[in-house]
């Protein structure tokens, strides 16, 4: 069976409020993904559209976006795993190509969150849990991760300062990313003194809602080589789940869905954590990045904070993580996020990440989580 490569990767600017319709938003990412390739929209055999429902009013957005990009009459459909929707889209596109159904597939992720107030968006996210048994208590995404943070602190002595150091790093890199929503460097004090949202997570421990889109174009090996000089190969795919309810969780010191997805992806790619040159992890909250270090095997359980203390996750470190600023700087337009993370790794592996290039990066990893650890997706790419 032929290998599958990413040939194009694009994203819109992520912004608090884009002032555009979802179709126009998707065009921005689609344009960037196609630029420089020896193909046109006519060569795309199918599209997979990814977002979380109920942020805008459009039902069945895949048909709409397909029409706007003139991808009709090619097949299109919708894929959803909340915040990891576009990583799931990539998995589906890979399978379509691997199965021989299509040669070239576009994965288009988007979210326009600015149509809702912040409290209404929080309500939608609360319903991304168990709506009979847990949403009626007022659970939110940050509250779920805050409980992981509290448990990690109690077991391993992790501190609020450790968490803040994730944001210090990511805000540093966010400054240089023209696609990021938040481009100010934050000090440890700024973060520690920010308003408490859901203890122990403060305002600057949390990413912002945003509008944005992403587009990843995949193709089978022979086609890929004819389209681009720099195909980036999809060599490892892992996907797993944990319970929708918090009540079902067996551990609160790591995300089991991420651990399982990572195991699958490493095995498929035939690599180990120490072989990864650069990673994008799902830092919807500072604690999420710390958990990711441990769930991905970059650090032993409980030792994730040490990587930050030693600056090992900076560009010059042993395992650079989120050197595009992460979700914490870019903002988190749910359905577009996975595609944005993949785009960053593609640029790193092509040597085109001018803002913060990891020297000679050959193997990269993307960790994209849906909900409070409900859907885990790990993707390994190689140049």
């Amino acid at each position, binding site marked *: 069976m032929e290998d599958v490569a990413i040939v194009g990767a694009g994203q819109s600017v992520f912004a608090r409020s884009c002032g555009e319709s979802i179709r126009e938003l998707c065009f921005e990412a689609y344009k960037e993904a196609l630029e420089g390739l020896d193909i046109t929209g006519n060569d795309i055999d199918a599209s997979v559209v990814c977002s979380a429902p109920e942020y805008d009013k459009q039902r069945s957005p895949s048909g709409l976006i397909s029409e706007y990009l003139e991808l009709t009459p090619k097949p299109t459909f919708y894929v959803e795993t909340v915040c990891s929707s576009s990583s799931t889209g990539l998995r589906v596109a890979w399978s379509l190509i691997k199965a021989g159904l299509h040669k070239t597939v576009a994965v288009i992720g988007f979210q326009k969150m600015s149509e809702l107030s912040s*409290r209404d968006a929080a309500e939608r996210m*609360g*319903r991304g849990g168990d709506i009979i048994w847990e949403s009626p208590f007022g659970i939110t995404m940050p*509250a779920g991760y805050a409980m992981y943070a509290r448990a990690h602190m109690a077991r391993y002595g992790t501190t609020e300062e450790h968490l803040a150091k994730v944001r210090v790093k990511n805000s540093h890199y966010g400054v240089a990313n023209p696609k990021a929503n938040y481009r100010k460097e934050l000090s440890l004090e700024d973060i520690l003194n920010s308003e408490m949202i*859901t203890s122990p997570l403060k305002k600057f421990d949390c990413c912002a809602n945003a509008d944005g889109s992403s587009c990843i174009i995949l193709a089978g090996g022979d086609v890929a080589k004819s389209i681009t000089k720099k195909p980036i190969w999809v060599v490892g795919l892992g996907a797993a789940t944990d319970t929708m309810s918090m009540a079902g*969780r067996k551990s*609160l010191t790591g995300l089991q869905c991420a651990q399982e997805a990572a195991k699958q992806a490493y095995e498929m790619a035939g690599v180990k954590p120490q072989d990864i040159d650069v990673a994008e992890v799902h830092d919807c909250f500072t604690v999420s990045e710390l958990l990711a270090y441990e769930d991905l095997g970059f650090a032993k359980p409980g030792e994730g904070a040490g990587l930050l203390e030693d600056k090992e996750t900076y560009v010059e470190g042993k395992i650079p993580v989120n050197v595009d600023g992460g979700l914490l700087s870019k903002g988190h337009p749910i359905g577009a996020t996975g595609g944005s993370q993949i785009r960053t790794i593609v640029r790193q592996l092509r040597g085109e990440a001018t803002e913060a290039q990891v020297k000679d990066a050959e193997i990269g990893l993307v960790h994209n989580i849906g909900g409070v650890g409900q859907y885990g997706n790990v993707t390994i790419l190689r140049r």
Partner: protein
Amino acid sequence: MGFENFGTVSFTAEAKVADFITQLEAGKVMATRCRKCGGSYFPPKADCPKCLSSDVEWFEVKSQGKLLSYTVVNYGPSGFENDAPYILALVKFDEGIQILARLSRDIEEKDIKMGMNLTVNPAKLPDNRIAYEFRRA
């Protein structure tokens, strides 16, 4: 009656396990157990996916649980803005189940200790609504 008056805001009413609410109003927090394989469930399930049986029985969650984690929510989503701040907690019980709910308002944040003993009890809310909450054991 179903789940229409459950919690601060409920999002659906009908379920085969709606008897939970009747028992909650009678003062008991219940979980389900499969009569065939003995598997116990919280959130309660009307069906056992392990043995594909729907022959389940109710049992009361009576043990002293242990606090696994908590968070003080200062920013409530729409519908919950007047509740905040409230404390969400996850508690593990001897019956082999875990429950997410709020801590009773008479427990102050400074008195919370990880691993502390708590019980789960029905809680009357304003406007004839009902839920359950954790109280000091």
